[in-house]
């Protein structure tokens, strides 16, 4: 077995980047091994010196191969075959990082008298223009005797079987054919100033000097933090380059001031001077396994957008598929912004911070719409940005179970891309102008409160309660449904009337809700606020049966809905006055309920599991109800019929 002649100089001159070709797997000797790990952090790194008998070069062993050292397989002076390696330039010297190798045999003694290849070949000027950066083994070879690079039918002439200009290798599929599946294609290009650009896919922690050229696809708001170690501000961006890899970058402290205003979403810049670290997968949904941190020393330059970088990489799903998806997943949506809500401020329960939000209704050609909440800066811009129902692509929206199904923007969402120039967007635009989005079904129901209830397409039937096992899915979470039904019976004959006595205090904490009990001297005592009052407020509470053409169910009515049911604003206090306080007027009492019985409403109910002793029962209560608007119902029905 002999060492591959000229291997070291070939490797070192093959230029910066990743190399792995089946026709160049040189046999070299490891003439030195040295541990250079950091004992404090426990990291284990090994420096190697590789030799081909004539030259030696400095190298490192990839940590993934550390096992070969620990097992004793790699020994001093052993012969190895290098299958995959990377060249990094560190302070004008080339470092060969061995990524994949096979130990062939141990050996006694150093073969030959190798010299330092760096000195011999003088690699100081390595920022050469692209043509020199091509791997050596493709050029006419001046070395005598067996040359591995000529053996495989590679042309010994000019680089015939490499694709054309190095400035656009992305289209060159022959690169991919020649590299082993595990490596990224050898992509190399330069900016107009001749600085070599590293593809994001090839960034790694060993390389400190790199320049990437990428588009800012998302830019977050500035956030400040304050903890025991200090405080500061940060913002993050996601960069996408021509290799279709994206990476998350964070700017800290001074870098925020320097670069926040400069960087604009969708513009292309070159970036260098950042530090690479392993990505925090919990918060990072980019393709790259790394993240970059930039401080004020970073160098960023705006470059013209030559169009080789996509605006954004998306993985769209249809809104209808969100119904089945679990909450907390992130999705990309391409949808029409059907409507934009008002900007609202609220205090976060978790952090106590004030948050700004704005709700949008998004709809796509799956015929389903969903609520989307924009947070922060994006909320403010929403009304103007999304006017006129544009097609918008949203990235990394987080799905939640709130209000049925809804989604909201995350760090990775960016502002949403209006009318992206992709075929799906055009198709969606056409669908919208053809159908006007009339027949959409909503995944996001209005939560509680009065106001619009679900219209016909979103309604269920009473039977749904049993069929979909509503209330049983999750003991803590109630299910909601809306259906049209008729009241068939009201259980009004409770001792003392179909109401309970509530605290007269209308502010916090009672809000007239909490139960009071009568004291011996005729006053009313409230457990909640510990107050005693001469009077109380009566609030309706009774149950009844509601039916539609599919089934019947018991529901409970609370005060607000009961008042509506009994004829508008019929308060319990009022009925009590008229029928109970002075003398019992059963007929009058009954007449209120008789009026309400057999009336039609659209009911919105909450269905929840309740434990009564040993038994677990599903109980439904009415949270909102509306009288039927027959004209609107008819219109909805006509629509549904025409879509049938």
């Amino acid at each position, binding site marked *: 077995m002999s060492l591959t002649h000229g291997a070291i100089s070939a490797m070192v001159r093959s230029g910066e980047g990743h190399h792995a070709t089946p026709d160049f797997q040189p046999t070299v000797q490891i003439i030195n091994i040295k541990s250079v790990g950091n004992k404090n952090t426990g990291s284990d790194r090994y420096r190697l010196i590789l030799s081909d008998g004539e030259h030696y070069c400095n190298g490192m062993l990839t940590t993934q191969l550390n096992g070969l050292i620990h097992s004793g397989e790699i020994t001093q002076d052993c012969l190895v075959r290098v299958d995959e390696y990377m060249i990094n330039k560190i302070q004008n010297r080339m470092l060969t990082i061995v990524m994949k190798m096979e130990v062939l045999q141990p050996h006694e003694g150093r073969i030959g008298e190798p010299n330092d290849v760096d000195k011999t070949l003088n690699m100081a000027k390595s920022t050469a223009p692209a043509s020199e950066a091509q791997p050596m083994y493709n050029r006419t070879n001046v070395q005598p005797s067996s040359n591995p690079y000529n053996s495989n039918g590679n042309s010994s002439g000019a680089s015939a079987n490499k694709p054309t200009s190095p400035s656009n290798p992305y289209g060159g599929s022959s690169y991919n054919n020649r590299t082993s599946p595990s490596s990224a294609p050898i992509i190399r290009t330069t900016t107009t100033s001749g600085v070599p650009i590293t593809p994001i896919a090839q960034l790694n922690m060993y390389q400190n000097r790199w320049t990437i050229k990428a588009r800012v696809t998302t830019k977050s708001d500035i956030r400040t933090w304050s903890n025991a170690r200090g405080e500061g501000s940060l913002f993050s961006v996601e960069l996408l380059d021509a290799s279709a890899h994206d990476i998350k970058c964070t700017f800290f402290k001074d870098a925020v001031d320097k670069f926040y205003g400069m960087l604009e979403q969708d513009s292309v810049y070159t970036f260098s001077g950042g530090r690479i670290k392993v990505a925090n997968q919990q918060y990072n949904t980019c393709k790259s396994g790394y993240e970059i941190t930039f401080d004020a020393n970073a160098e960023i330059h705006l470059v013209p957008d030559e169009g080789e970088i996509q605006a954004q990489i998306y993985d769209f799903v249809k809104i209808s598929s969100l119904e089945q998806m679990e909450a907390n997943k992130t999705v990309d949506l391409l949808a029409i912004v059907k409507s934009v809500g008002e900007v609202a401020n609220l205090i976060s329960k978790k952090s106590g911070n004030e948050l700004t939000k704005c709700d949008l209704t998004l709809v796509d050609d799956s015929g389903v719409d969903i609520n989307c909440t924009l947070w922060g800066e994006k909320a403010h811009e929403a009304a103007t940005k999304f006017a006129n129902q544009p097609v918008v692509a949203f990235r990394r929206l987080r799905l939640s179970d709130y209000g049925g199904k809804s989604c909201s923007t995350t760090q990775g969402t960016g502002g949403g891309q209006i009318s992206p120039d992709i075929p799906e967007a055009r198709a969606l635009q056409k669908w919208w102008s053809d159908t006007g989005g009339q027949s959409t079904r909503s995944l996001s129901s209005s939560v509680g409160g009065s106001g619009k209830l679900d219209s016909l397409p979103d309604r269920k039937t009473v039977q749904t309660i049993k069929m979909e096992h509503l209330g049983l899915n999750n003991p803590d979470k109630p299910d909601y449904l809306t259906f049209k039904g008729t009241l068939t019976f009201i259980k009004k004959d409770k001792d003392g009337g179909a109401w309970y006595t509530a605290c007269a205090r209308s502010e916090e904490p009672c809000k007239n809700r909490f139960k009071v009990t009568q004291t011996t001297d005729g006053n009313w005592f409230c457990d909640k606020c510990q107050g005693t009052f001469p009077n109380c407020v009566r609030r309706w509470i009774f149950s009844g049966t509601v039916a539609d053409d599919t089934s019947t169910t018991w529901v409970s009515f609370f005060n607000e809905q009961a008042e509506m049911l009994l004829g508008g604003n019929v308060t319990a206090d009022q009925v009590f006055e008229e029928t109970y306080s002075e003398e019992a007027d059963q007929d009058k009492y009954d007449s209120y309920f008789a009026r309400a019985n057999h009336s039609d409403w659209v009911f919105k109910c909450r269905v929840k599991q309740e434990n009564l002793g040993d038994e677990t029962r599903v109980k439904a209560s009415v949270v909102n109800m509306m009288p039927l608007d027959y*004209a609107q119902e*008819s*219109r909805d029905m*006509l629509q549904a*019929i*025409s879509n*049938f």
Partner: protein
Amino acid sequence: MSEQPDGAYPRINGKILKSSEHANKIVSLVGNIEAFDGTSIQLKCADGVIASVQCEPDAEVMQGCMYELIGLANDNGTLQLFVSRELTPDMDMDIYNRMILDVQLNPKFSSYFLPA
């Protein structure tokens, strides 16, 4: 009268009446009374077409109100009134018309409108 099943009468609008499609059959016409002079009614139907309805002087109709008029369709495109039913003024004529055209007359749903 022809073999019209008992109690089964189609709902029509002005245009359908004038086309004499249901001549000599009992039909139902819904509309607003534009004019009533004792023996004839000008009825503005669901599709906006004014139809002519012959009636008795004691017909219980009032100008300006909405009615369902049931009677015999003549082959000259007019209606001979039998009975009238008053409807509330908030009846939406457009929806009614769409019901006639898109639903009742839709071949897809003809099976639903067959007499029992």
